[in-house]
């Protein structure tokens, strides 16, 4: 397996009232060809900032990348010139956002917006680009694509708009698709359609998918690999089957247990007390410590990310000390 994308020691800071705060801190992962990496996290976990850093679309004044590398097909996109980065964005890595309505231009027909991508990246003529746009709309399952290409974003339903955005992301034939909460705003039956579409496209094109989500069900269904993020850091990482079968971080376990299950009916749900921390006022040591049922006194020093089994990492003092910790949940 070759890694198409390698992120190493990434640090992203955001401007807050009290100064620069680390939204992403020492995040590393690699994305292999044809595989899906799910980045699971709650608000403030840094999952979206990581994705935006990969595309070079972080808000310019409010954020800065202060450490790390992002290698895409062997090139560090943080080092290359802006013009080169623009080529990589689209041709190598493309992004699908949660909110298609604000990501699409409201005053241009959707076909035209897809055409722009084809023309810019693949030097197609106008006529050919237009044909290509219709092909792409058809590919993502928009009925009557030839006619619909002339419609504007507001004329599409939420699910159809998300398909349009996927078509646009595919316009330059990227090898990596980054999808930031692509189904969060959609109803479950439409979510199922979009997840199926992403899965099919990935299969057909051997694309790598970086799927950012807060939904454990989506992760369970889609992921080959998992990165669990919390307060800007990676808390757990590994093959999905391994992480689901043997979660090694108390946060991952607690998240899995807080999903209501049929057999728990009539009993109170397992809860994680408190709420995710504000990144401008993180607790010292392990960021999850104030909410962790297993916190001990040494948790006030920052735990390292340790490889506990082949390819399975956890950032927890307890997991390192006691490998049986995963047995009792």
């Amino acid at each position, binding site marked *: 397996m070759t890694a198409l994308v390698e992120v190493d020691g990434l640090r992203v800071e955001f401007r807050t009232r009290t100064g620069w705060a680390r939204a992403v801190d020492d995040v590393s992962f690699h994305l292999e060809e044809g595989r899906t990496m799910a980045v699971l996290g709650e608000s403030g976990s840094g999952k979206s900032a990581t994705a935006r850093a990969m595309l070079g679309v972080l808000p310019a004044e409010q954020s800065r990348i202060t450490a790390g590398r992002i290698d895409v097909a062997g090139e560090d996109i943080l080092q290359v010139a802006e013009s080169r980065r623009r080529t990589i964005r689209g041709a190598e890595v493309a992004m699908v956002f949660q909110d298609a309505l604000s990501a699409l231009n409201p005053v241009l027909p959707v076909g035209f917006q897809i055409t722009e991508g084809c023309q810019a990246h693949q030097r197609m003529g106008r006529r050919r680009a237009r044909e290509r746009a219709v092909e792409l709309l058809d590919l993502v399952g928009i009925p009557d694509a030839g006619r619909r290409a002339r419609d504007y974003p507001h004329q599409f339903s939420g699910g159809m708009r998300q398909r349009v955005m996927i078509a646009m992301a595919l316009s330059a034939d990227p090898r990596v698709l980054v999808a930031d909460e692509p189904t969060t705003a959609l109803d479950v039956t439409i979510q199922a359609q979009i997840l*199926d579409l992403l899965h099919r496209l990935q299969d057909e094109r051997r694309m790598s998918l970086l799927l950012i989500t807060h939904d454990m069900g989506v992760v369970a269904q889609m992921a080959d690999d998992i990165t669990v993020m919390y307060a800007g850091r990676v808390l757990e990482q590994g093959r999905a089957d391994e992480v689901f079968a043997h979660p090694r971080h108390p946060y991952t376990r607690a998240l899995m247990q807080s999903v209501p299950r049929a057999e728990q009916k009539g009993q109170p749900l397992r809860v994680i007390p408190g709420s995710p921390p504000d990144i401008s006022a993180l607790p010292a040591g392990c960021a999850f410590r104030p909410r962790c049922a297993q916190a001990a006194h040494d948790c006030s020093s920052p735990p390292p990310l340790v490889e506990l089994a082949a390819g399975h990492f956890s950032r927890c003092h307890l997991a390192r000390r006691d490998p049986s910790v995963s047995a009792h949940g």
Partner: protein
Amino acid sequence: MDEVLLQARSVSKRFQVGPRLFGSRRTLQAVDSVDLTVTAHRTIGIVGESGSGKSTLASMLVGDERPTSGEVELLGRPLHQLRGSSLRQARRDVQLVRQDPYTSLNPRMTVEQILREPFDVHPDLAPRASRRQKVSDLLAMVGLNPDQLDRYPHQFSGGQRQRIGIARALALKPRVLVCDEPVSALDVSVQAQVINLLEDLQRELGLGCVFIAHDLSVVHHIADRIAVMYLGRIVEEGSPADIHDRPQHPYTKALLAAVPEPDRSLHAEGRSRQIVLQGEIPSPLDPPSGCHFRTRCWQAESRCAEERPLLSGADTDHQVACHFPLEVTTGRVSG
């Protein structure tokens, strides 16, 4: 049998939409002949996708919207025929908890002011001198620190704000609580806290609850009965076990199948989804004739276009509105 607190009888809501000019206004049927009974100590869950009419139904249950036809009876009184002081009295008994804790609290008011307001509207409920105490008690009841009375909503997290919303709804000691997507704006790790809180409060106060959500696993957990809505109509109603293990309406089955299963071991066994519903919910401006679901149903026949199926069932507890209800098979539909 527990006391019946709130009863909707064949309520419908139609909106006139579009420009008034040249009579081009069209009718949008948001809710169509819905019957619903809320009893003390019990929770009825309502599930459905956007456009199914569940929020319009909630507005009618709490008296914010007037039904176009049908009626809502609250503690034996016809809610929508009451006027003046009797209406004000009645509206104490049913309160709404909204989805978005970020916009439903006035950002310029302190928590104390927010929680005092109900007592200012209903001054007979608590003498002025005791109100500060009342407000601290409310805060304690929802698990917040009464020291935080002077803070503003933005100084709280999403979960805490939803607790404040719940405290405000409980200030007037309602008998019925209508919760419209109360946890869907919250972080996953915080949702369980709020669900447990609602369950505790219901037990303590004997509330009748209506719990509206699009998340089936949450509704399954909290509800004693579940009604499934599609395009303004209830298409199936039954116990959580009926709905989950023995769904009879094709839509219910498809909806359950669409929820991604969080238990990875079930995926590994190849028990992945079998049904992916095609298409989208049709416009309520132009709903299909007969059964509204027939345009997306895999077993629709000509009868489904001609005749509206009514809620019925040999087992009165489990009702389905379908001409060709699914065979009841044992075992859960694989998610």
